[in-house]
């Protein structure tokens, strides 16, 4: 979407040559990087203090974020999930803060461009196929052939279509929600800039958080679907931990 107003990343020397969504994603990531660097330093300075600070500091913020990610992953994937902490945590933080950046004037969220969401969804797609092959070896292809071998010529195209629909639906959902939210906000700002956009902005916060959670929960479902063994889930989980770690 073309923006009429000021965009912050246009003022930064190397970012202004990039396309809009990339510049914004890099800018948001840079801000996050600085925040996390400062938070990490303040945690290190604190030592192994168990009692939290009296005020809400950067260290508290980081602990809250990491704890939330870990809890979400453990609730939905069990013990196996901890080996996917890095990819899941990066997805949560990147999508959440890019979505929320759409509510700050001067940022155009990168997730309201289809290129970004398709890149995220394709990363997820290739990674879960890769982990499927890594955990099961060549037997992973049995997931595609269906219950009987004589049904395989029929089941293989069906399964391929079903698997291709996953990244498409993931990316289209995130893109549609963020784009729609941003567009409605822009139109309301154009019509009545004073108080009217406030409920829409509140709705924007809600949509940002919910869409992040939906994306990540579906990603976790795909990952655990790829690494689970049919029928013997408990044993499969143990093996998966050993292989993925």
């Amino acid at each position, binding site marked *: 979407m073309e923006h009429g107003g000021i965009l912050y990343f246009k003022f930064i020397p190397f970012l202004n040559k990039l396309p809009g969504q990339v510049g914004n994603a890099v800018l948001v990531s840079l801000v996050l990087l600085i925040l996390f660097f400062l938070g990490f330093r303040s945690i290190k300075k604190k030592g192994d203090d168990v009692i939290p600070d009296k005020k809400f500091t950067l260290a508290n913020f980081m602990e809250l974020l990491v704890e939330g990610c870990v809890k979400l992953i453990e*609730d*939905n994937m069990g013990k196996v999930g901890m080996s996917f902490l890095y990819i899941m945590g990066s997805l949560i933080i990147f999508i959440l803060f890019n979505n929320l950046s759409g509510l700050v004037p001067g940022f155009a969220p990168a997730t309201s461009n289809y290129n970004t969401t398709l890149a995220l969804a394709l990363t997820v797609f290739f990674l879960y196929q890769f982990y499927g092959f890594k955990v099961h070896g060549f037997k992973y292809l049995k997931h595609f052939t269906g219950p009987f071998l004589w049904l395989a010529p029929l089941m293989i*195209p*069906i*399964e391929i*279509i*079903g698997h*291709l*629909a*996953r990244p*498409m*639906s993931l990316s*289209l*959902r995130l893109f549609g929600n963020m784009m729609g939210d941003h567009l409605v906000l822009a139109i309301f700002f154009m019509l009545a800039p004073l108080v009217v956009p406030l409920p829409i902005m509140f709705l924007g916060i809600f949509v940002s958080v*919910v869409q992040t*959670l*939906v994306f990540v*929960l*579906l990603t976790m*479902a795909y990952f655990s679907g790829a690494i689970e063994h049919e029928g013997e889930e408990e044993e499969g989980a143990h093996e998966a931990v050993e292989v993925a770690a």
Partner: protein
Amino acid sequence: MKRPKAKKWVALVSKYGTIGLEMGLCVAIGVIMGAYLDKFLHTGPWLTIAFTLFGFIAGFKSLFKLAKDLIREEENREHDGRKDRNP
């Protein structure tokens, strides 16, 4: 019956809200794949028709899988309830 909590609610949305988009996209991907294969292999309309049907089946298969999961969940809940009543 207990009302689902806020996090449970998001999990339900991500599980059952995705089915509509996925069923539509399965048919669309089937049609596009079939059309391109026809174009490269020069096999008339046959592959388009076949892959459209495969797309329909793939969409309904994901619906069927979801329904099976739901039934299993209900059974588990009933089982747990019985265990709670007679400890």
